[in-house]
């Protein structure tokens, strides 16, 4: 469904993505692991054209897009097929939880207000925020904000949802509620690409795990292959480090 080929991206003199290929099938949950600075965020942002990559292309559905040359119209097209969940939520500060969800429907997709409202209510209920419709982001906890962020993303019925470390800004006791929602989505067959350090989440729901380092994909396979039985030394090192960190955290 989504096939990325040879994506390159540089910031000034440093090449951050050095030719990444990625294949995502409908219903896949692709988890991307990798150390800080390996280019995970840049990869997600480039897929959504928040960053303009220098080289490479993707086939999305039945259309091909050049990362470097995509027109404004094509970019909007891709953005309407995707949604993004940010590490720091990026909820619209001047809109209530409900308005955050309806915005993409009413303004982005010309859905009548009443219908959008009903849909938003349904989705907010689904993520467990039925009593928070008219709260502004500043009035919500981090976990609640991120669940609104996810609600905003699923409302527009994207073909793929991109998650960039959705739980890493959260206090430990709030991580669970967000992962819970994501697991539910995975169960329902939502296609997702998730950058995260939550190894247990990856083991439970990932159909594919990718390990990235220095702008390249080092290892790729099922959770069992990459997390339980990594082949590459760098993967092993990384996994040792984050599992150690987790033990410290406990």
């Amino acid at each position, binding site marked *: 469904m989504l096939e990325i080929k040879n994506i390159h991206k540089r910031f000034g003199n440093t090449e951050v993505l050095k030719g990444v290929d990625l294949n995502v099938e409908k219903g896949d949950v692709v988890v991307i692991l990798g150390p800080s600075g390996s280019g995970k965020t840049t990869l997600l942002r480039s897929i959504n054209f928040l960053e303009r990559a220098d080289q490479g292309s993707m086939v999305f559905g039945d259309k091909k897009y050049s990362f470097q040359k995509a027109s404004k119209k094509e970019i909007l097209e891709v953005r309407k097929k995707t949604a993004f969940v940010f590490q720091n939520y*990026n909820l619209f500060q001047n809109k209530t939880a409900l308005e955050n969800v309806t915005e993409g429907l009413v303004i982005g997709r010309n859905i009548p207000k009443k219908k959008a409202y009903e849909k938003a209510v349904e989705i907010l209920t689904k993520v467990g925020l039925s009593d928070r419709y008219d709260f502004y982001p500043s009035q919500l906890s981090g976990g609640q904000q991120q669940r609104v962020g996810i609600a905003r*993303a699923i409302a527009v019925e994207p073909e793929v949802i991109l998650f960039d470390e959705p739980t890493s800004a959260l206090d430990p006791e709030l991580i669970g509620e967000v992962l819970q929602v994501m697991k539910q989505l995975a169960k329902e067959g939502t296609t997702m690409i998730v950058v995260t350090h939550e190894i247990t989440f990856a083991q439970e729901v990932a159909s594919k795990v990718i390990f990235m380092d220095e702008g390249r994909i080092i290892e790729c396979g099922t959770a069992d292959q990459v997390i339980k039985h990594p082949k590459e030394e760098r993967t092993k090192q990384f996994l040792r480090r984050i599992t150690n960190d987790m033990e410290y955290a406990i």
Partner: protein
Amino acid sequence: MNFNLDFMVATFWVSLTGLGVTLKLTFIPLLLATPIAFAFAIIRLKKNQGFYQIITFYISLLRGTPIVLQILLFYSLLPSVLNALFESLQIELDIFSLNPIIYAYIIFTLNSVATLSEVFRSALLAVQNGQLEAAKTIGLTSFQAYVRIVIPQALVSALPNISNTTVNLLKGTSLAFLMTVKEITALAKLEAAYGYNYIEAYITIFVIYVLLATVIQLLFGFLEKRFGRYKYPRNREKENLYA
């Protein structure tokens, strides 16, 4: 020294007949300047070369010189320049019979453009980039994202500065008497000239300006609370709204 209280009361009412002119001199230039200032702010932010240089130069010129000087200069210069222009275009229009308030509008607008474009620029910068990006990811065009998400937030955070600009302009309009515009200060001076009651006249309009400035600040304070609701914690929202 004895104060002539009756005179002060009389002057108060006479000066107040200039209130309309003073308010027009304040709000008409602000309204005219707002869209231009916004465009300038966006051009400056986009670093559109050429334009960027011209606008930056314009802003530093108007913000770097006293408004009194701008008035004196423009008011002596503009009529002759316009007259020459109209004559060369063979347009029959007697510039010198034009209501001087027009010049006041022009100068105060030019000035407000410079101030407001800086206000809008910093307000737009204060809106986190993530807001624009998030709007794009749910399929909004850049234009929609600005109109729906970025600009409303920028305007709210600009309100205190817009309030200051308005009060400063209100005070600045008192200089319009230099152009023989009959606003509050001009009327008070006229009134005082008959019997040399300048001190009483000045104290009277002093009070008027303080009152006006206070009303404006209260008004903006209200707008800030009304439209900035989203910034306040929920349980304190009511208190804040009526504080």
